[in-house]
């Protein structure tokens, strides 16, 4: 589904990703872990198409298309979804109105008919109960004055609405207490299927207690330096990232 080959990217002339290789197949859950500054969020941003970042080498293929050629909205249309680490607050735009536009533009991209008001409402109700979110939150201005947990739950709700093939969760656990993590994770798990894949980017292991990965990758200094099963996450939790630095220095 996703094939990243020798990806190099940076910002303002500074190289941050120094040759990433990663393959994700349908149904899989991958976790990328790594210390601060290792390039985790840069990878998420580059995949979603944030314009501040410059790709200097390598390729990314998503469902047979050159992902890096596509505008951010086209990536979403193809089925990519990035849950933001810091969801943006937009006063004056409700989540419902935003989603009405987003769902129908994605449908248009996919060659599907637009939903009418009744169909949209039905879809929304279904997804609301799936990710356990309150309607009051959705009628309010997007993320404005939301708690950290509410923001992340809103991200998961939007993900459910857009039914992506690959969901990237960028530090979805950051700033959340354990209950909020559990609720967000339950939402993510509710929309997982054999056809879609998930890429979890996280600093800590605890989110992975709830979204159990098939593969764990350790990102360090712009490269994936170690890959393994879910036990690798536990190992990291035990030892921290310092061993990596030692290992790298020796190497």
């Amino acid at each position, binding site marked *: 589904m996703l094939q990243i080959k020798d990806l190099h990217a940076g910002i303002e002339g500074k190289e941050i990703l120094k040759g990433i290789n990663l393959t994700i197949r349908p149904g899989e859950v991958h976790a990328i872990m790594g210390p601060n500054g290792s390039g985790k969020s840069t990878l998420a941003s580059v995949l*979603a*198409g*944030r*314009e501040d970042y410059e790709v200097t080498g390598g390729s990314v293929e998503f469902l047979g298309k050159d992902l890096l050629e596509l*505008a*951010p*909205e086209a*990536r*979403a*249309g193809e089925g990519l*979804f*990035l849950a*933001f680490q810091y*969801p*943006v607050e*937009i*006063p*004056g*735009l409700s989540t419902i*109105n*935003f989603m009405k*536009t*987003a*769902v129908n*533009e*994605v449908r248009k*991209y996919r060659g599907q008919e637009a939903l009418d008001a009744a169909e949209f409402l039905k879809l929304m109700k279904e997804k609301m109960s799936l990710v356990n979110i309150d309607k009051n939150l959705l009628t309010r*201005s997007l993320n404005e004055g939301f708690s950290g947990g509410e923001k992340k739950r809103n991200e998961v709700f*939007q993900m459910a609405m*857009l039914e992506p093939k690959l969901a990237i969760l960028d530090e979805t656990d950051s700033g959340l207490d354990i209950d909020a993590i559990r609720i967000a994770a339950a939402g993510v798990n509710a929309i997982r299927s054999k056809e879609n894949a998930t890429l979890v980017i996280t600093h800590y292991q605890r989110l992975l207690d709830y979204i159990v990965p098939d593969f764990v990758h350790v990102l360090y200094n712009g490269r994936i330096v170690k890959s393994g099963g879910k036990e690798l996450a536990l190992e990291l939790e035990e030892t921290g990232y310092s061993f990596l630095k030692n290992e790298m220095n020796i190497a």
Partner: protein
Amino acid sequence: MSTITTIKDKAQQLGAATQDALQPVRAAALAAFDQLGVPAVKHEEWKYTRISQLFNQPYQLGVDHSNADAAWQAFRLPEYETANELVFINGVYNAAASTVRSAGLVVLPLEEAAKGEYAQIVSKHLGHSGKYLKDGINALNASFLVGAVFIGVNRSTEIEHPVYIYNITDGRAGNVFAQPRTLVHVAANAGVVLVETYGSIGVADHFTNQVMEVVVEQDARVEYYKVQNDSNRSSLVSTTHFRQVGKSYVHAVTISLNGAMVRNNLNMVMEAEHCDSNMFGLYFTSDSCHVDNHTIVDNAKPHCLSNEYYKGILDGSSTGVFNGKIFVQQDAQKINAFQSNKNILLSDNANVYTKPQLEIFADDVKCSHGCTVGRLDEEGLFYLRSRGVTEASAKSLLLHAFAVDILDQIRHDALRFYVDQLISERLGA
């Protein structure tokens, strides 16, 4: 003969022909105009709005439009069927086209009001705006006073339906200069919703110099909406002057969406304790449209509250001007005055000039002001696009979201939907 000379001659002729109760006001105003002239850009209050250029061409003046056809009806506002409608054509009130439905609402020719039971009110308040707007353009309006109207709201009456005021110019016979004038008196404990709008008929240059003065008595409530979406060849100087003579409430929203050169003067003179007033504004301009909002809040008495919030979206090579003046006189202790102006520039060629101006002579007051000029939020844009919304749609969603807190201040539902629709159409949504 220059346009200004023609206008002065016309004013003089009018004065000679009409020996009514307003004649002393006209004569004094004409003398003031003679002395002050048309404000030039060296006049501090007109620094960015070059109005003198509008006097470089001939206009029709004082054409009789009492038999106006139905063309003005194209500018009718929603739910007009139940509203009170006052129609001015080329500055002259047209009684035949107008409808006054609500009990307790009195509409009279100003010269009649000046000699009847409202004589004292007229003599006390007519021309009060000239004390604040010391320029020739304000005086020029008062030098005509033809087809001017007095609007009275009776004591303890809540006028159920809004009062729609249409300032129409008919340019089918050539360029037109119009000077509508109204004096509104809202008596004690009364309430009214006033809506002003503008419309141009025919392809010509239209120039309207309009003045409305509103007297608000004890415990009265006024909602005032001004909606401007006129043609690219229609210029406007629109003055609205509130005088809160008793503890009262005024809620004003000014929406400017199009026009050639638009200058709005909004004054809030708070002459009693515990007055409360809101001043909201939205200007959304493109092409070469020029919109200038000058506001004055004068706190003369203690314990008043004024809240002012203007937002601007400027595209093309358009220009926005915001100048917010707040006076706090020595006796006006314990007042609260808030002011904010926020702007988004969508183009490199658009300009905005924003200036807060506070003159505070009391020592126990709370005043705040702030202004911002920025571009559309890139992070917000990326967020929306990452959810599949095209760049164009994302921009329009963000701009609508920016405008919505001013739109929400239009409490009259049908009017808010109407303005929202105009904005959404402009945004291509």
